[in-house]
């Protein structure tokens, strides 16, 4: 239970410095507008801001009132940008007030936004600035850029606006923690981010030179290299908590059903939560046993107070009680969470769902899985779930599996479908194929040889998935002789109940083992990444052996908690430690929602 790190595992760098930097910049920005001021904060920026500063810091710098700018559907995008400043400016003018206005964009301002301000004639009334806050340490080994929009902007729209943000973040990391002697990457975006970052370093040459590298390797990976893993239901504890309650910016809102009281509780989930830290990477089936054991131990420790004399009791109260009480709190929270997850999952027929997913991953019983998905749609379970399953079917089977979803969830979904196809989440359909009946389609797909010719320019992003072949090449489906013991995992597949090794993690493992892409040409070709797999090693003799076992993995477009758990496992096995940098933590529902186009 709760695998300890190997004794020779390297220490993680201290990332709290990033928070301090962000806070100092924030204070600097606040001081740019001296005197009392009101603050309007966009809803999505609230949680990250909360992690950086608190009210007393804002008050110290003369912030008077705080307002949250809601993303109400009534306010469209552009309105948010200029209507609010405009209307505030004008309201003040009417009231005869003169105030100074400042719009701060985080992490950077875009020319398009300034253009809108200019066109609407308030450029000049307001000044624009940037809060270059792009790296939020959510945990000791997890840095998030908190840019969920990265996924849609890049992978659907092909907009490269965040690449510079990523490059800047990497540049910041290398100035703070030394250069990275070994760089690897796969994916079009990874390559661009890498090149831009190199450019930055060259422009500012000399700064990182001569510094001892603290982190030996960096690995950049595009989300579209592996959609499959992100589409699977998660079964490690942290992933399940994310799928069920949605972890937001490292914290989760546990409702009354979890807290067994009448109030909700906002709980920070990270390594500091001792109970959570021991179960976060566990397969869910192990969590019960662990919590039971913990509860018994706790009881035993409390029981010790019986038969204590006064002095012992005093010691107990002053030294142990506090710790026990905190553990007790945490324990009852996580037990509550488990119960609630069980209830929800049981209702959802989770067992069947998982079975279907595994069949899709392994590639048999396709007909059965297809009819399960069809029924899933018929039962109106949830549009997001159905979309997810269809995408999984489509990618694993390399073909379009569009069902009559429009009928069920409203015709607007045809816009969503078009998005999914453009992003490569539903793979291209052979031209002229307009059969809607899934069954006939799937029977056809099994023997599908007609490769849809990509003429549409958008399809340069969309591509055929070769999941089956890749899976075979990389051994993603472990051969099971007998039962897979989830208590003693033997490979990364444990994060999916032993059924599947996450593709993204397997690629990282393989490349780190070889220190290059050598021998992986076929896999790279099947991933459609022949032009976008790169290695860059600098002969760096200053790198300590310890730093060479620290690996920064950069997920462009988001990573899931399952992937994090899998790599943490790999790290423990090999004596590495992984540090994760992601544009945002994601899961299947978030991916699907990012592609949805429904608005009433």
């Amino acid at each position, binding site marked *: 239970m709760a695998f300890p790190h190997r004794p020779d595992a390297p220490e993680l760098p201290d990332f709290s410095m990033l928070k301090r930097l962000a806070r100092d910049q924030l204070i*600097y920005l606040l001081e*740019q*507008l*001296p*005197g*009392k001021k009101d603050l*309007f*904060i966009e809803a999505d920026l609230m949680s990250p801001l*909360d992690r950086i500063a*608190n009210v007393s810091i804002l008050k110290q710098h003369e912030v008077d009132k705080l307002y*949250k700018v809601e*993303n109400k*559907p009534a306010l469209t*995008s552009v309105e948010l940008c200029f209507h609010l400043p405009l*209307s*505030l400016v004008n*309201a003040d003018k009417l009231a005869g007030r003169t105030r*100074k206005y*400042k719009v701060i*964009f*985080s*992490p950077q301002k875009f*020319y*398009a*936004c300034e253009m*809108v301000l200019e066109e609407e004639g308030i*450029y000049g*009334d307001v*000044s*624009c600035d940037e*809060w*270059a806050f792009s790296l939020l340490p959510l945990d000791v080994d997890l840095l998030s850029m908190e840019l969920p*929009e990265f996924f849609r902007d890049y992978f659907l*729209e*092909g907009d490269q606006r965040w690449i510079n943000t990523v490059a800047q973040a990497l540049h910041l990391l290398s100035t*703070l923690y030394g250069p990275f002697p070994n760089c690897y990457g796969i994916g079009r975006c990874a390559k661009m*981010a890498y090149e*831009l970052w190199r450019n930055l370093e060259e422009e500012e040459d000399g*700064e990182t030179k001569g510094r001892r590298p603290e982190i030996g390797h960096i690995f950049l990976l595009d989300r579209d290299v592996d959609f499959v893993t992100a589409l699977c239901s998660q079964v490690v504890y942290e992933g399940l908590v994310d799928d069920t309650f949605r972890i937001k910016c490292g914290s989760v809102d546990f409702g009354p059903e979890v807290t*067994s009281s009448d109030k*909700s509780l906002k709980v920070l989930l990270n390594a500091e939560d001792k109970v959570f830290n021991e179960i976060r990477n566990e397969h869910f089936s192990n969590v*019960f046993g662990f919590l039971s054991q913990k*509860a018994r131990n706790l009881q035993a420790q*409390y029981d010790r107070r019986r038969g204590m004399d006064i002095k012992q009791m005093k010691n107990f109260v002053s030294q142990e009680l506090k710790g026990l009480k905190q553990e007790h709190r945490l324990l*009852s929270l996580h*037990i509550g969470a488990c119960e609630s997850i069980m209830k929800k999952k*049981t*209702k959802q027929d989770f067992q069947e769902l998982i079975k279907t997913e595994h069949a899709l991953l392994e590639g048999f019983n396709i007909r059965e899985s297809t009819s399960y998905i069809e029924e899933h749609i018929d*039962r109106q*379970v949830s*549009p997001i779930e159905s979309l997810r399953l269809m995408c999984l079917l489509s990618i694993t089977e390399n073909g379009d599996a569009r069902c009559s979803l*429009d*009928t*069920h969830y*409203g015709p607007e979904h045809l816009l969503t479908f078009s998005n999914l196809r453009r992003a490569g989440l539903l793979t291209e359909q052979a031209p002229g194929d307009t059969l809607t009946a899934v069954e006939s389609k799937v029977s056809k797909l099994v023997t599908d040889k007609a490769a849809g010719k990509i003429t549409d*320019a958008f399809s340069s992003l969309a591509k055929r998935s070769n999941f089956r072949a890749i899976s075979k090449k990389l051994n993603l489906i472990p051969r099971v002789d007998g039962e897979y013991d989830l208590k003693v995992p033997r490979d990364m597949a444990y994060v999916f109940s032993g059924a599947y090794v996450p593709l993204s993690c397997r690629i990282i493992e393989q490349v780190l083992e070889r220190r290059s892409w050598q021998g992986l040409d076929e896999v790279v070709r099947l991933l459609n990444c022949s032009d976008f797999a790169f290695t860059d090693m600098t002969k760096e003799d200053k790198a300590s052996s310890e730093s060479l076992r620290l690996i920064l993995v950069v997920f462009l477009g988001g990573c899931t908690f399952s992937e994090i758990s899998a790599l943490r496992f790999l790290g423990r096995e090999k004596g590495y430690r992984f540090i994760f940098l992601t544009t945002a933590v994601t899961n299947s529902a978030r991916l699907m*929602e990012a592609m949805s186009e*429904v*608005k*009433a």
Partner: protein
Amino acid sequence: TTTGLILFFQSGRPLGAGVRLGMGLRMNRTKGDEEEYWNSSKFKAFTFDDEDDELSQLKESKRAVNSLRDFVDDDDDDDDLERVSWSGEPVGSISWSIKETAGNSGSSHEGREQLKSRNSFSSYAQLPKPTSTYSLSSFFRGRTRPGSFQSLSDALSDTPAKSYAPELGRPKGEYRDYSNDWSPSDTVRRLRKGKVCSLERFRSLQDKLQLLEEAVSMHDGNVITAVLIFLKRTLSKEILFRELEVRQVALRHLIHFLKEIGDQKLLLDLFRFLDRTEELALSHYREHLNIRDPDKRKEFLKTCIGLPFSAEDSAHIQDHYTLLERQIIIEANDRHLESAGQTEIFRKHPRKASILNMPLVTTLFYSCFYHYTEAEGTFSSPINLKKTFKIPDKQYVLTALAARAKLRAWNDVDALFTTKNWLGYTKKRAPIGFHRVVEILHKNNAPVQILQEYVNLVEDVDTKLNLATKFKCHDVVIDTCRDLKDRQQLLAYRSKVDKGSAEEEKIDALLSSSQIRWKN
């Protein structure tokens, strides 16, 4: 009152993502609305049978932990956990504080009010240039300059970060460059750093394109868009389109930019120029999402019919139009009936939401609920919907069953599965399988007699036995065990029925019967 005002935005959000987030919320809400109708169609699923032990284990530990509570909760003061206010937000957190001040958020309301009249204020457009803006983009360039880290906290002064402190003291004006001879690549580099940089000197087409190519080869989307804004302003549409057609990366940026600023007209022109007919059609169709008035929306959808969608999508668009047309008629009619208060079904079961813009299956459910017995000729009858939209049999039966079971109209349920052959014999048949029927009925709290009837119709014996056990249809379990001559299972089941009940008697009678040749 305050002298200053600061607005924080996530980059890009003000342009595009706001809409998307809004849509996310919207979607959830619609889902909620549909759930109102669909409660009944969600099946109660299996329990993790083999996990039962663990669940009880968990329950046990929960009890253990709870029993400790008395001891633990005696004083809460020295709690290590975050202090949390009544709403669950940690006290002192920013979100918490906002809720506290929400009461006097007058000015934000004022702000909203003003939104509507923004046009009348556009005469304020001529205003002075920004006075002093400071560039933070060069924050981590790392060059140590005198006075460059004055506002960083002391905490940092002894860390390596010191030398990477921002150049805080410098007004942006210092960086502003009036020089005219930046090469395209220098210009692009300056743009990437967020510096003000005039593009006006790039007047020849060749210069403009070179600028664009430099931007694309640098990969920064923000810069690509900046150059495109300039090109859009200084080139004719046709030339711009023509040049972008062979520059796909830039083209995607322009398309996204046009979507974000909502320049639908130019976007459609662009698709037309590129001959991307399907995208053109979809883009046009997307606009209906912004039309709230149902009649206007319907009229708009009419204009979408016949656009060059794929064959499959065309059918959906046609259906979308027909469906909304129907819904408008049904809605008007039912709203009238409901308010008149004369119709029993509406009195007993008031409508929870309007049927407008609901998906087809929800509409079918609605019509099975409120208009089940209507003749095929009316727009609101289920059979009419089934025919018009070619709803498959399975789907129809599922939906009708859910609706009638919710109303506890067991006769209708019965009729749904009864078929007569030409000799007049009746037979029960369910296209969805009777195990599904049973689950739906159970979900709708059907009485045991009804459940029993349908459990008995399940063909597969194991499934039948499982369902009967799960839903406590004792007679079915007992009879099935008897038919299977499975004495052991019957014995085991005896412990699950109430002591002294009729079921127990029945089991005892069977067990002691000498007529049955038990297999075990």
